[in-house]
């Protein structure tokens, strides 16, 4: 079954239409989305850089991960809300944009990875005695997040 009817339905919602018709709503929502992006990257980097053996090396990984967790979840909520609104306003364009699908695939993978493998690695302080799993986790996490950011920016160019 094709997802196209769903995308078309999203595009035709009253919210999607209101955003399209406004001169400033789309850019303002996009700016919120960018602030959210910065917050997510900040919260992710703090832990991933530590897993790579740099940054706040004196702090235990589990404590750092716990400290940024509420900020990570909060900024993800901001990104989903603003991103969802942007999507409604141009859903049919997204359906035909390869960049959109790159982004959604990376996002799907990184969310699963973050809340399963990465969560376990950062909680178990695995990186302290066995640096390789920690480094690998950080590299996978950063690569997937870059996929999200790459796809996200290129939706706008398509």
């Amino acid at each position, binding site marked *: 079954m094709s997802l196209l009817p769903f995308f078309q339905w999203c595009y035709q919602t009253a919210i999607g239409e209101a955003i399209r018709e406004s001169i400033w709503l*789309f*850019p303002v929502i*996009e700016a919120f989305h*960018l*602030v959210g992006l*910065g917050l997510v990257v*900040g919260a992710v*980097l703090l832990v991933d850089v530590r897993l790579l053996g740099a940054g706040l090396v004196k702090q235990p990984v589990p404590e750092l991960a716990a400290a940024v967790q509420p900020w990570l979840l909060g900024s993800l909520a901001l990104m989903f809300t603003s991103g969802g609104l942007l999507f409604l306003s141009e859903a049919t364009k997204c359906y035909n944009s390869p960049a959109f699908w790159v982004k959604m695939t990376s996002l799907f993978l990184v969310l699963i990875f973050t809340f399963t493998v990465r969560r376990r690695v950062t909680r178990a302080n695995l990186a302290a005695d066995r640096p390789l799993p920690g480094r690998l986790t950080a590299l996978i996490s950063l690569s997937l997040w870059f996929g999200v950011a790459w796809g996200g*920016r290129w939706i706008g160019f398509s």
Partner: protein
Amino acid sequence: MSLLAFFGWLADTSWSVALHESQYAYSIVESVHVWTLAVFFGSVVMFDLRLLGWIMPKVPASEVVGRLLPVTKVAFVIMVITGTLLFFAIPLRSYQNIFFRSKMLLLLLAGLNVWLFHARVYPKVVTSDVGGIAPRAAKVAGALSLALWIAIVFSGRMIAYNWFDCDRQPQPDIINFLTSCDATEAGP
């Protein structure tokens, strides 16, 4: 030669036109600008939240600043370079863009805040760090930095959507004054 005339001349140089009309170069430069923005803004927000005592209160603020600042600096340099290139591709339109102007003003204020913080407040932060609570001035600097950088991200994003462009007349007199637009001309 006025700035307006200078940027008008710059806009007509072949390099500026080439970057503006390139199929990929402009998009790539803009992408790098956004990605480094995420790294820069993300690390700055972590400093600010720490100064406010909202995150990692047990980790000394000087440790957070000291260990993350190299990343912030590299990201900042890349942002300035890519940002300059983006301006160079569209100099005159950007110069007359009200959001570009407000962004430059806000950047100046943010820079002033950074300078004041490092010259006056940071030495106190380092000495009073261990207790976990930063001095009041550090909290003010953190809150100001947070507000300014969020405003800079907003202005920056609006530059691309400028709905006060000189070509979109009529505009209120105050807008044309603030953007040095000539309402009687069709615009640049």
